[in-house]
């Protein structure tokens, strides 16, 4: 088991870097962008110091970073990149390619709002804009979870041949130092054995990949991606169990808070959940049956777990840190599609915390109160803390 001597104080970005190092990665290809830069800086230093035996490629763009990772992954290598915001947007084309080519690349994604106007602060508009690419996404709320999720992501991705993003809030996690327990290398080696690839780019058994597929087989290929997402749901659960056995720490697709008898629930992703818990406690003191859920596993969407957790007939407010302009927040509309109408829940979409604006306990409280008072719009966007 893990002793206290493995506990070190590191930032969220360093937590990813350590996980990548311990995963015995082969290829890292990246381009710097705030707030991601210190992830690859740390990895570059590990490589330079001989603490990692990896090929580090500084590319000329994120598009190339992802392309290099895909190429590396196709040879059977374990490949990693990290980015944020504009960088992730520039990768967009290759994000699709990574999925279609079935390359289990892992991406450290530090959530930063997309320009214009320029900002470097956090929201989830960058990663939400990639939700339809077929990447798995795990949203973290502390640095230990960042470390654990990164290793788990490798293990799941290589089994289901889908790439995965480990997502963390800019600065709140990326640049904030917390205590993180790093397990010994042999424990990681045992948990995450070398990748096995039966078909790969290999001069000894040559194949061409990514060629033309006509309508008689293209749709089956797409179906297989969705099928893999379904399988991933089960693989994630069993890998969570394996990780817990090895480390005593448990990851959860959904993290509930005082949910069992809740009549009004607020959901969100990432570190804003701290404010949710605070508001729940405050309302509970007033006798209001409030509860909260944090979503760690966003893709594949944990439909089953959500249905089990949400009390029947409760009101559910979903706080999105991204907007699908002209309709709602992305997570809100998805929760709505999953829960209604059989469980008799009313689901409301809220938008808060864009471009780094803090989601305070008062902000969350106002979300609860809007639902309790019946002033929340059940169809449109409910803006939180916005001057209108």
């Amino acid at each position, binding site marked *: 088991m893990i002793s206290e001597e493995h506990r070190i104080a590191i930032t969220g970005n360093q937590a990813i870097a350590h996980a990548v190092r311990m995963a015995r990665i082969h290829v890292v290809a990246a381009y710097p962008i705030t707030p991601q830069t210190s992830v690859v800086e740390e990895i570059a230093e590990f490589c330079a110091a001989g603490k990692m035996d990896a090929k580090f490629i500084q590319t000329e763009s994120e598009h190339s970073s992802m392309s290099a990772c895909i190429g590396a992954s196709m040879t059977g290598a374990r490949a990693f990149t990290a980015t944020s915001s504009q960088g992730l947007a520039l990768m967009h084309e290759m994000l699709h390619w990574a999925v279609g080519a079935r390359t289990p690349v892992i991406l450290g994604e530090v959530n930063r709002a997309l320009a214009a106007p320029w900002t470097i602060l956090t929201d989830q508009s960058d990663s939400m804009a990639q939700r339809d690419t077929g990447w798995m996404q795990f949203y973290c709320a502390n640095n230990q979870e960042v470390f654990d999720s990164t290793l788990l992501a490798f293990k799941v991705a290589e089994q*289901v041949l889908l790439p995965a993003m480990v997502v963390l809030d800019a600065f709140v996690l990326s640049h904030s130092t917390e205590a993180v327990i790093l397990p010994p290398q042999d424990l990681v080696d045992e948990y995450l054995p070398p990748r096995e690839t039966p*078909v790969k780019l290999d001069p000894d058994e*040559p194949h*061409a990949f*990514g060629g033309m597929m006509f309508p*008689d087989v293209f749709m*089956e290929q797409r179906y*297989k991606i969705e099928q893999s997402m379904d*399988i991933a749901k089960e693989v994630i659960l069993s890998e969570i169990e394996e990780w817990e056995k090895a480390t005593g720490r448990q990851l959860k697709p959904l993290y509930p808070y005082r949910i069992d008898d809740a009549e009004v629930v607020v959901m969100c992703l990432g570190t804003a959940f701290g404010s949710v818990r605070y508001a729940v406690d405050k309302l509970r003191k007033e006798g209001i049956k409030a509860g909260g859920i944090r979503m760690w596993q966003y893709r594949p969407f944990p439909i089953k777990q959500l249905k089990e957790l949400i009390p029947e007939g409760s009101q559910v407010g979903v706080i999105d840190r991204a907007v699908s302009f002209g309709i709602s927040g992305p997570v809100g509309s998805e929760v709505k599609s999953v829960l209604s109408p059989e469980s008799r829940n009313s689901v409301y979409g809220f938008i808060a915390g864009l471009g780094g604006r803090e989601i305070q306990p008062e902000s969350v409280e106002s979300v609860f109160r809007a639902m309790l008072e019946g002033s929340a719009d059940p169809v449109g966007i409910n803006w939180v803390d916005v001057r209108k």
Partner: protein
Amino acid sequence: MAIHKEIFSDEALRHVREGSAKPPGQLSADEIPPMAASWANTEKMPVGGWKENRPRYLRGLSPCLAHCPVGNDVEGFVSTVREGDVESAARLLAAETPLPATCGRVCYHPCESGCNRVQLDGSVGIRAIERYLGDLPYFDSANIWSQARPATGKNIAIAGSGPGGLASAWALSLLGHKVEIFERKPEPGGLLLYGIPAYRLPKDILSKEIGRIKDMGVRINCGVNVGEAKELSKLLESYDSVFVATGAAKSRDINIKGDNNKAVYSAIEYLSEATSGNIPETGRECIIIGGGNSAVDAARSAKRSGANVTIVYRRTRAEMPAYETEIDDALKEGIQLEELAIPLELIVENGSLTGMKCLKTKLGEPDDSGRRSPIPVPGSDFVIPASSMINALGEIIDKEELTKNSDFQNALSELNHWGSSNIQGLFAGGDFVGGDRTVAHAIGGGKRAAMAIDRFLLGKSANPLESYIVGGGPASLAGYLKNGESDVLAEGIKTIQYKDLNPAYFPNVEREELAKVLDQKPDNSFREVESGYTPEEAKAEANRCFSCGRCTNCGLCQIFCPEGAAVHRDPQSKELMIFDSHCKGCGICVEECPRCALVMEPVNKESDVVKTETQ
């Protein structure tokens, strides 16, 4: 980690590995692999028929070759040093020059001015690499050369043993001819010995270089002044051919009051005496008039004899024809430069020189030389102290001294590029024929004349002499000996420019500069001011060479070819080849090539049917 069985089934794996006769639309879900993967490699897909253009390996010319007045295969010997084979590098160098240790010290390296690396981080230190090779034991004897053909029985007389005469003698010897040199001075070497001070070219180095040429059987008769003792026409009667390379040995007159004083010297006379060990008396204040290389050489020699030296020049430093590094070194040694001044008269008191009256000038419009002309400023005269004056206004060619025969004088004034005159068997080269007066140009002229003499003596060969010209510049003796079979002599060969290269492959690397004695402590001795490269430094510097236009087998074309199979080096012949059947003409190999050793050419669809059968 292994892949989940449901995601990559055994059926799908078998399908990818073994292929299937079924059309894709009839495959079961289990048989369809999760990704698009072919059954075999791209050899099965002869895409050669797609192309509109095709790449071809084509040697381009490195600009250093075209810029070298000698005709050295500069890229060849530099890249061979880079590859670590210094003996082959020395042989490549020896194939085109008899005087590598000399040029490696005194050449003003036009090759480096032409070097494409100038546009990145400074030219390759070619001259220093040549010096490094020239000082190696391979050049200890004439064994580095082997006779190109048996003795022809032809006899050639050469007037002058400077670089032009020596180069010509060497080349003619290699070609099997018997050569005799006539030199008016007591020792051979011409300007190399009597014009270039020993701190730039040590005498033992020069003597070793000349010794090798003597060992090839060249006879050098010193103390024989062609013109006085032997009339040219007489020489031509006794020899099958005569080559005149007596240089430009007469000083231009200065024509000012007092110029007949005994403390007034010409630079030629001063340097000649100084290099013979009898440094003429200059007193405390020595004035040098002129801005060329002989002015700087005279100044630095006078400084070494203990005088305070001032160079008086009518324009500014920027217009001085002397080479930049020589001026730098002279100033470092404490020589003064009086710019924008013309001498008016020498002040003589009681028969002794005491000063020189000068007039200030200002720069006007550019003159014929392209440099701004000096305009005297009336009333600006001033006096500088002088105990001696060296006139370095330049040297002129004296044909009258050589021959009184006007037919010969005229013939020697109308020479072609190869030094041939309209008198049968009479050739000339070196400083004597004008043009650029450098050691390298003289060697180049001597080589050209040797090739012309060879053709004159043995009748016309298959190729015109022009076909041995490298890149519109120098002539290649090695190419001549191989009857033109040299890839740098290919017709229409293109000189590679910096824009043709792919600088992404060339990181900045600082040039290895030669250590200079004077950087530590200038002294008054004539010991050599520069020291040569160590083997490590030579290799590091050679490593900076781009090898413009020549395939170095770096393999990037193979790495980048999307068809994988399309670009190859034949394992047996080492010939570069592109499989037409699989090259689809994308041009990535041409774009990526760091050194422009590939070109893209249009495919003529009518006549040039691309074969598409599988290899």
